[in-house]
């Protein structure tokens, strides 16, 4: 079998033989025509001359279907963050109570506590409470824990006690002369003039005190207080001056003062979950709200307790401003917990 090589000497149009010896065929040499070297501009010009301009002809170009959502890049569906059940937080609190020597934490009480924490989560109250004290376990050591962060540190807002207080299954009882608990909560770290609340669940209204303060802190005319006057009317202040509801006699159970705006209707006193009085707001500065909130007395400008109370408290909180419905929900949840603990007043 012969092998033909390109006939490099042949010119364009000449003939060459190709194939097996004896069966060769004759082909015409059709080498490429040599063209002169072109510049890029010349190449582009020649190319454009060869190209036909594009025009859209609907008869020639069929649209199979219009672009739709399937043609778009898929948007990831945001996964909704489930509302925490509160069970983990409740269990942490109960563990702290029991580890501190608290008693009476039965399975029924544990379940009720979980339900209470769940209510705080579901009703959106958890983030609005700076600290709260469920006073469970019946001892000083078990009552000190902040239910929101039950660690044994000042930074965790556990209570530190001063003077005469007693502790039992009903809660914490200051002696009315020198006993109080320091929450270590500095209001100005959280609140502003239109945003704050205080509340406590009191066992009785009876007292021999003239102006017993259940919870609060004061700096001259800047005050965050919840108290009563002459064994009768509920008083309170957020955050300048204090006001006597007058026609609102103090009731036992949950009492709350809350402010959510500069409107009069949004500064209210609540008893057993119901709004009983609204207060004309003020816009005074609250730069003096830098001393910790006391329970069982008012913190007098950081110098110690003042206006001591002798009322038993079964639940107490410091919070951001709460709306009427939030106060209602919180009061209901707290009272339900008190029912389980057999210390409800209503």
């Amino acid at each position, binding site marked *: 079998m012969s092998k033909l090589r390109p006939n490099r000497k042949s010119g364009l149009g000449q003939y060459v033989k190709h194939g097996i010896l004896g069966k060769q065929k004759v082909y015409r040499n059709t080498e490429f025509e040599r063209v002169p070297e072109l510049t890029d501009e010349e190449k582009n010009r020649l190319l454009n001359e060869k190209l036909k301009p594009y025009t859209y002809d609907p008869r020639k170009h069929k649209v199979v279907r219009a672009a739709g959502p399937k043609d778009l890049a898929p948007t990831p569906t945001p996964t909704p963050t489930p509302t925490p059940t509160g069970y983990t937080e409740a269990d942490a609190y109960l563990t702290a109570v029991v580890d501190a020597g608290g008693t009476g934490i039965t399975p029924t009480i544990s379940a009720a506590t979980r339900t209470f924490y769940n209510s705080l989560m579901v009703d959106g109250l958890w983030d609005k409470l700076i600290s709260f004290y469920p006073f469970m376990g019946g001892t*000083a050591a078990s009552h000190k824990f902040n239910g929101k962060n039950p660690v044994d540190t000042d930074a965790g807002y556990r209570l*530190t006690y*001063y003077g005469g*207080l007693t502790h039992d299954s009903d809660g914490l009882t200051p002696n009315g002369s*020198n006993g109080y608990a320091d929450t270590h909560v500095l209001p100005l770290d959280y609140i502003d003039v239109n945003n704050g609340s205080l509340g406590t669940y009191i066992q009785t209204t009876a007292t021999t005190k*003239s102006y017993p303060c259940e919870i609060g802190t*004061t700096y001259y005319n800047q005050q965050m207080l919840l108290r009563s006057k002459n064994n009768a009317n509920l008083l309170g202040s957020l955050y300048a001056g*204090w006001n006597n509801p007058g026609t609102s006699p103090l009731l036992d159970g949950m009492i709350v003062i809350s402010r959510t705006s500069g409107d009069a209707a949004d500064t209210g006193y609540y008893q057993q979950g119901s709004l009983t009085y609204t207060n004309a707001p003020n816009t005074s500065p609250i730069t003096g709200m830098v001393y910790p909130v006391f329970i069982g007395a008012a913190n007098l400008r950081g110098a110690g307790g003042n206006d001591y109370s002798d009322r038993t408290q079964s639940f107490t909180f410091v919070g951001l401003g709460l709306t009427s419905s939030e106060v209602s929900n919180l009061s209901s949840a707290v009272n339900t917990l008190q029912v389980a603990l057999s210390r409800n007043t209503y």
Partner: protein
Amino acid sequence: MKVGLLTEEQKELLVGQLYMVDTYFNPTLDGNDNWFISTIEMEYSDLQWVKELPLIDYVEPTTPPENE
């Protein structure tokens, strides 16, 4: 209500001292400018001299609350 009467020196000894777990003494002035502690503090303290403080009737201070 009875309370334990303190001298100025005794008051200084108790300030900042715990009398039981998590609970500090709180010497306070009554309405007659006497320093006192509560009977609860006396009962739970381990200090014998505290347990033996003389008892007086508590007189509530008459100073009205701030900004009434």
